[in-house]
Every structure is written in C-alpha cells, then in structure tokens.
C-alpha cells in the first residue's frame, strides 16, 4: 500500500518483545504517544480475536507483544485451533475522527471488479452488510477501461466526505484500483480507512489476496509466500502439484478432478463418515502423483481408511490400476484401501486390482465405495 502511494501508519515488524518495545520507542521519539500492536497472520477478523491491541507506552507495547508472540490467535476467519503468531507489527497510533471501509474484489456474476465502500468502517463490516445493506456503496470498474476519476470521486462522496478529506479519499480510491490491477489481486481491503481530525485519510489496516494464477508474472509477490503460515501437508502437496486440503475426518480421499473429489467427500458424508481431506490427483492420475499423494495422505492424523475414486476417461482404468499397484509397492499402507474405478476399461482395471498381491477392497459404484470406506474405518 505504501509503495502504491496510499498513506499508511508508520511502523515496523518485530519478532520478539524486546524488538517490539524498541520499535515503539523509536516511534515515541518521533512524537507518537499511542502504539498499536498487531498480530501478523494470514487471516482477517483479528480485532475480534484479540490480535490488535493498543499500548500507551513502549514498555506496554513490549508486554503486549510478549503475550501475543507464540500464542494461538483464533479469529472468525481461522479454524477453532487458530493460527500461531510469529510476528507483530508495531505502529504509531493515529487520531481517529471517522472510520470507513473500502475494498475492491471481483464481482463474479458481473464479471468485473467492484469497489465496495461504506461509511460504517471498523470491525463489524460483515454485520453492516447483513443488516444495513443500504450503507454499502458499490462502484463497478469497466473492463479494459479502468476506474475513471469521477467514479472514484463518487465513491468518496458516498463515504460522506467533503473538502480536503474528499480529495484525499478520491486519491486513495484511484490508487487502490491501480494497485488491485497491477498486482492481480482478488481482494484489496482497507478496514478501517480512517479520517483524522486534520482531514488526513490513512489506511489503518489492510488485507490483500493475490490471484494464485497470476503469480507467474509477480515474482516479487511469490517470494512473500510464508510456508510457516501454511498447513504442512498442504505445502508438501503443492510441491508435487497436487491440490490438497486437510480436514479433520477419518476417510482419506484420492480422486481425479476437483468436482468429483468434492462429490466423493459428499458421498462419504451421506454414508455416515467424514473425509480426512480433499485431494485432486489430476485428470491423469499417473504413478508418480498417486505415490506422492499416498505419502501425504497417510500422514493425516486420525486416518482410518482410504477411498480412491478414479473416473478413467482418456486415461484408461487399467493403466490407473497399474499405477495404484505400483505406488503401493513403494509406500506402506496399514489402513484398508477401497478403490472404485469407472470409465474406460474399468472392468480390466478392477480385475488387475483384485488379482494383485495387495489387499484392496474393490467397489463398483460411488455410493458402494463410500459405504465400504466408512464401514472399514469403524
């Protein structure tokens, strides 16, 4: 945001209480009397979860940082287990006359970016959207043209601003729109965007989501990836180009295709079980990927059975079956494995699995496979 020319508070990141206190002391020498301590995690809703606190002295900032660092922060956007806080941001506290909300995201239905603005900024913007939608202003951005100055000015008027504050906010809106396009964001959100008693407009806190698909042209952003913020198994899967999401059930899933993977998980739920993960091995389900997928899958805590569901299209089921057998010769699996193959050469594939020396449970239909996998895991 600072690089994009959007006013942000002064501050620095600290990884220890001592560094936090020193950072606050530096700010104190510049004349700041209040300090914000903000947990640096990849999740929103930090204010509600106690991840943002104010201090009135550098010593207090250090004490707050000490309590925050190493703790698990639970917010409405994290799971119940929360996320571990490894860094805090120490900022000079700003005087707030007015808290606003300003964000840009992609409106999927209208197929274009949309600016969402509200004069009701602060922690409860979700509440405002739900109960008082008339307080939320929308400005769509025309594809190929970008945001016009009068449109940005309109957003600032909708925020209820006049005079110098209006001019400053208009600039922020234009700069945020340029930033959104320049970095291929899927979300740029400033909350709160504050107006100071001197009519300055400052982005007090912000969240940016980058479109993964666009990282190839933003090496500088790809380098910001922080593995410590990611699930270990998910990060390992990403290395093998596997799409994997950890869940807390007992039936491990390996499926080709994202839609079929979700449908398989749904079928497990209907059969009275719960999936341990989402895993898409890709349309082809090659030996290497199946083997890599097994290694990741078997590390899931609480795993009691595995369900492999492959729809063989262009890739024939007999080849997929050989791949599964080969993969299982290199990876030791000590839970029951249910395999369901359908599509091209499915019968041949099932025969190969049944004749192998490995102990598969072979199912024909998806619901049968799900019932077997849930039953075996009990």
């Amino acid at each position, binding site marked *: 945001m600072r690089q994009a020319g959007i006013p942000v508070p002064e501050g620095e990141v600290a990884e220890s209480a001592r560094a936090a206190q020193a950072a606050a002391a530096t700010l104190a020498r510049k004349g700041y009397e209040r300090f914000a301590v903000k947990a640096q995690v990849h999740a929103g809703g930090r204010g509600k979860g106690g991840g943002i606190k104010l201090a009135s002295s550098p010593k207090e900032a250090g004490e707050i940082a000490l309590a925050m660092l190493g703790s698990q922060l639970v917010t409405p*956007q994290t*799971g119940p287990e929360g996320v571990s806080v490894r860094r805090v941001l120490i900022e000079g506290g700003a005087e707030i006359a007015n808290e606003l909300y300003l964000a840009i995201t*992609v409106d*999927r*239905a209208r*197929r*274009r*970016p949309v600016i969402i603005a509200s004069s009701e900024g602060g922690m409860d913007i*979700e509440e405002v959207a739900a109960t008082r939608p008339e307080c939320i202003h929308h400005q769509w951005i*025309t*594809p*190929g043209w970008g945001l016009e100055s009068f449109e940005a000015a309109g957003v600032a008027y909708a925020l209820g601003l006049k005079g110098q504050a209006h001019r400053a906010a208009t600039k922020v809106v234009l700069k945020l729109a340029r930033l959104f*396009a320049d970095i*291929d964001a*899927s979300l740029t959100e400033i909350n709160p965007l504050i107006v100071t008693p001197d009519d300055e407009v400052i982005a007090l806190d912000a969240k940016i989501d980058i*479109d*993964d*698909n*666009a990282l*190839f*042209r933003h090496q500088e952003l790809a380098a910001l990836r922080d593995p410590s913020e990611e699930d270990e198994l998910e990060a390992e899967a990403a290395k093998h180009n596997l*799409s994997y*999401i950890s*869940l807390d*059930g007992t039936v491990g899933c390996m*499926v*080709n*295709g*994202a*839609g*079929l*993977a*979700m*449908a*398989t*998980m*749904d*079928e*497990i*739920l*209907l059969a009275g079980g*719960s*999936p341990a993960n*989402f895993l*898409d091995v890709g*349309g082809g389900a090659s030996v290497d990927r199946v083997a890599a997928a097994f290694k990741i899958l078997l590390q899931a805590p609480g795993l009691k059975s595995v369900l492999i569901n492959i*729809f*063989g*299209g*262009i890739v024939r089921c007999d080849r997929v079956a050989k791949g599964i057998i080969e993969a299982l010769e290199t990876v030791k699996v000590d839970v029951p494995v249910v395999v369901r193959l*359908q*599509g*091209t050469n499915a019968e041949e594939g099932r025969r190969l699995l049944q004749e192998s020396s490995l102990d598969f449970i072979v199912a024909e*239909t*998806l*619901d049968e496979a799900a019932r077997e996998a849930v039953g075996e895991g009990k």
Partner: protein
Amino acid sequence: MSILVDADSRVLVQGITGTEGSFHTRQCVEYGTRVVAGVTPGKGGQKFDDAIPVFDTVTAARAETDADVSLIFVPPPFAADAVKEAADAGMRLAICITEGIPILDMVDTIAYCNDRGTRLVGPNCPGVISPGACKVGIMPGFVHVEGAVGVISRSGTLTYEAVDQLTRAGLGQSTSIGIGGDPVNGTSFKDCLQMFAEDEQTRGVVLIGEIGGSAEEEAAAYIADDYPLPVVAFIAGRTAPPGKRMGHAGAIIAGGKGTAAEKMKALAEAGATVVDSPSVIGATMAEILATG
C-alpha cells in the same frame, strides 16, 4: 439438433502443435469432429498429421478454411490473448480448455469477446460435446451417446461420471457443456439453460454445480420463471470448509457465501429436482423422463 456445436461445426485448434493440443486434436478427429485448421504462431504452412493445415494467425486460418469454432490449448500466460485473437477473427464460438489463467485477464477477455459477438466457453473446462456429431474438448467421447438430455457442469470428471450414469440408464445426451471451474467464465449456467430451452432435441437438463460464487442461484432464478424443461441438479462440496479453495479456483466459500446448502435450497425452491447423492443423478433423470 443440439446446442453450440453440431456435425456442421468447422473447428480450428489454437495450440495444435503443443503436447495437449496435438493429443486432443487427434482424439477429436477420431471422434468425427471436422477439424479444419490449426494455429501455432511461427508454424504457418506446416501440416498437422499430414492432413490439417497450420496457420500463423486465426484470421489467416479462418479466411482459408471458414472455421467457426476455436478450441484453445494455449498455456496460461498467453491464453487470454489467444481467445481475443479468435474473437477478433470472427469465430462464432471459442472454447478455452486452459487451466490457470489470471482472473483479471478473463475479465478483460470476456468484455472483448462480447464486443466482437463471440461466445466464450470456459476457461478451465473440458469443452463441449454433441454426441454422435461433434466433440470439441478433452472429454472421453465413448461414455456419451446421442439423446435428449442436456448436461451443464462446472467440473470435468464429475461431468463424465454423470454422463456415464445417464448413458447406463438408457438416456443419451443432446449436448454436454463444461462451463469451467474458474471464478469468471464466458458462458453461464443460465446461458446454457436458455439455449437448451430453445433446442428441440433436449427434453431435460442435468445441472452440476459446486460451491463458490452465485451462478447456481442465478440459474435457480431463471428456472423459477416457468422453465419449460425438467432440471435435475447436484451441487458438489457440502463438506468443504469456508475459506479453502477446493481445487478449482472458483470453488471457495467466501464470507459465508456460496455454500452448497444455499445453492441446493435455491434450486429446489425454483422447482429443480435436487439430488443429495452424486450416485443417483442418472437414475433420477430417468425416473422424471419416464413419468413426465
């Protein structure tokens, strides 16, 4: 008849000499699709498999061969440009298979296609097939048979699964369309529902949605307004946790919106037959068509 593609469609493949492009071009030709041209910049003048002329540009290919449908296998960094080139050359329909195209590229590209009057299907989709007549995509042709059920889906293999169930239940398909798993795509459920309603061959529609976005809710609103055909719907992703992207870039529950439960409710209220289990999509449609 079918929708979007038929036996008269003259198909051009952009990226025909690449690994994916060449493999699937052969599969389409084998199925009976009339692939009349290929485009790979710098390889103009060659012949693909000694039969299909390759051109440097879509405009040149179209002028020479009268192609009207483009099938696109161009890698993500260049795919948006390829779609725009197809639109500018006056192709009626562009079907983009490529997965991993930046969302903002697609925003611009769809506006460009609308300006040129070109329909885009995809990206990140398996393509379109009118069984027995024309296959423009990467789906396994053999699971399909010609018939009266229209299929629309955001997925790939889950669509094959549903089509396979229909075929086993004795129901053929008029056209099966994969609209793609990305957040922003060229053709919506609603667009396809509209085309199926106007198609004499189609007597029922299978709609396969998934979590994320509001395309299913928009389809529901359209169906609620006296849609003339029976619709069987399945929504994948009931077990998906919020905030996690389930493989497809578009399959994410954001801010509590886009859940499977909401979509199923909207479709059921609109009069669609919503099935809980993906295993009964085919049987449910068979039952409805037998009684209706």
